[in-house]
């Protein structure tokens, strides 16, 4: 399997693997970030409500030890 990576190899690999690092990333407005986070949290609450409304027999165990 592969040999040990030299620092030169690593630098070359990094340069090849993440070209996007070289370009500045568009910084979204703080308000937009907050809005998206609020929407995601609202969705979690909405989903909790939908899950609570789903009736299943009390004996149903979670698919914990899941095997296909």
């Amino acid at each position, binding site marked *: *399997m*592969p*040999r*040990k*990576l030299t620092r030169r190899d*690593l630098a070359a*690999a*990094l340069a*090849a*693997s*993440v*070209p*996007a*690092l070289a370009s500045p*990333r568009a910084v*979204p407005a703080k308000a*937009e*970030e907050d809005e*998206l*986070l609020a*929407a*995601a*949290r609202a*969705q*979690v609450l909405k*989903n*909790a409500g*939908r*899950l*609570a409304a*789903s009736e*299943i027999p009390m004996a*149903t*165990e*979670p*698919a*914990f030890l*899941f*095997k*296909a």
Partner: protein
Amino acid sequence: MPAFDDDIFFATASELNQKLRAGEFSAKELARAFCDRLEKLGPRYNALALSLREFAVRKADDVDDELKRGRFRSPLQGVPFGAKDLLSFAGQPTAWGARPYAGQVFDYTATVLNKLDRAGAILIGKLSLVELAGGGGYRYAAASVTGPGLNPWDRSRWSGGSSSGSGSAVAAGLVGFALGSETSGSILTPAAFCGVTGLRPTYGLVSRYGAMALSWTMDKIGPMCRSAEDCGLVLQVISGGDSNDPSSAGKSFYYAPQYTRKFKDLRVGYAPVDFDEWAESSSRPAFAQALEVVRGLGVSLVETSLPDFPYSLVTGTIISAEGSAVFEPLIASGKVDQLADQKQIAGLKAGLDIAAKDYLKAMRIRSRIQQALRRLFVGVDMLLAPARSGPASKVSEPLDARRDRPDAKSRGLRDLIQAGNLAGLPAVSLPCGFDEGLPLAISLVGRPFTENMLLAIGREFQNQTDWHRRRPPG
């Protein structure tokens, strides 16, 4: 060095192996030619995460020595392939498609890559993906450190996610085959959008040791290839028990489609509503034709539909809760804000708010879904549906933009991707035609560990059609 033309770059893995054994060219020449192509064209589709040329050429030298000595390891010996960049390869960067993990290096190699290495296959590069396999939910195709996955059939279209680079690289003839991974649709979707054949194995059949975790109870690793036959050959190599993976089923897979049941004894469940209403209107003729090809194989087509469950809700809750738990250190460090997609950032943060009772409720409903699907499979041997309702979306289009279609009369098999993943069922995606020059695909889903049956149907479907042999322009 011989001149390699498109017939070589678009050959199946087994065809490449036959040519190597016949001495038409050496493994080193083939590896170099594929590396040249991957490095030249990979960036065109944002498909390349990392070239492994140096390693590949050394490995190819070893393969040539073995071939000279008449040591044949497998039908994949000497075949160049690529791996989704969430599989670790010792000593080389594994970025998981995400800026915060750029430069991350592991000192161990994923089990699937070790198995392919022992079979003589040659890893030539790591392929791009949606950042963190998209676990937080993402809004734009550009949710990756390598940029949006571009479709070789039309670069203004998405290659699908999250195994974007694997789909593009196979479709564009940059690798002989690729490995992808699926939590909920990440192999089937890019396979369908890019016009390649994808296989999602039964949960636990393929070791995930060395793969990025997104959802411990749903992640699977599988092949993306030029044919169903190739998927079977790759699965045979990468399957098997692994004590390093607690989810391992401890089972192996031997590709033997010739020993499956006779097609005339198979019942294939399908829902007319999927083909007549859920599918995009311009895609319906191709899907209808594919249905007739399957019927022509001699199977019995049986109308069916999925039992009524909130599949998306359950899938979303489980992936979100497990994914946010996996990436809790990233979220706590604040580095999560370096991700490319704002919706993904918000989704990962909000996932930490999911209450234990809600996760457990989702997992309890999942138990009911598994039971209901077991009952469904008493009446059918496999399910058939369009893999996606239409061709690839535009790269610039938000992925959550709702397409304007009327409500259909019944559920059909519309949620088959989520249902199949929740139950850990195997699936295969087969190219079945085109809409506006873009590939379409059907998917087949079977009971656990019935990959040979799905691949037998897939192989015969591909004997009757040539959609999987089509090549993208330029």
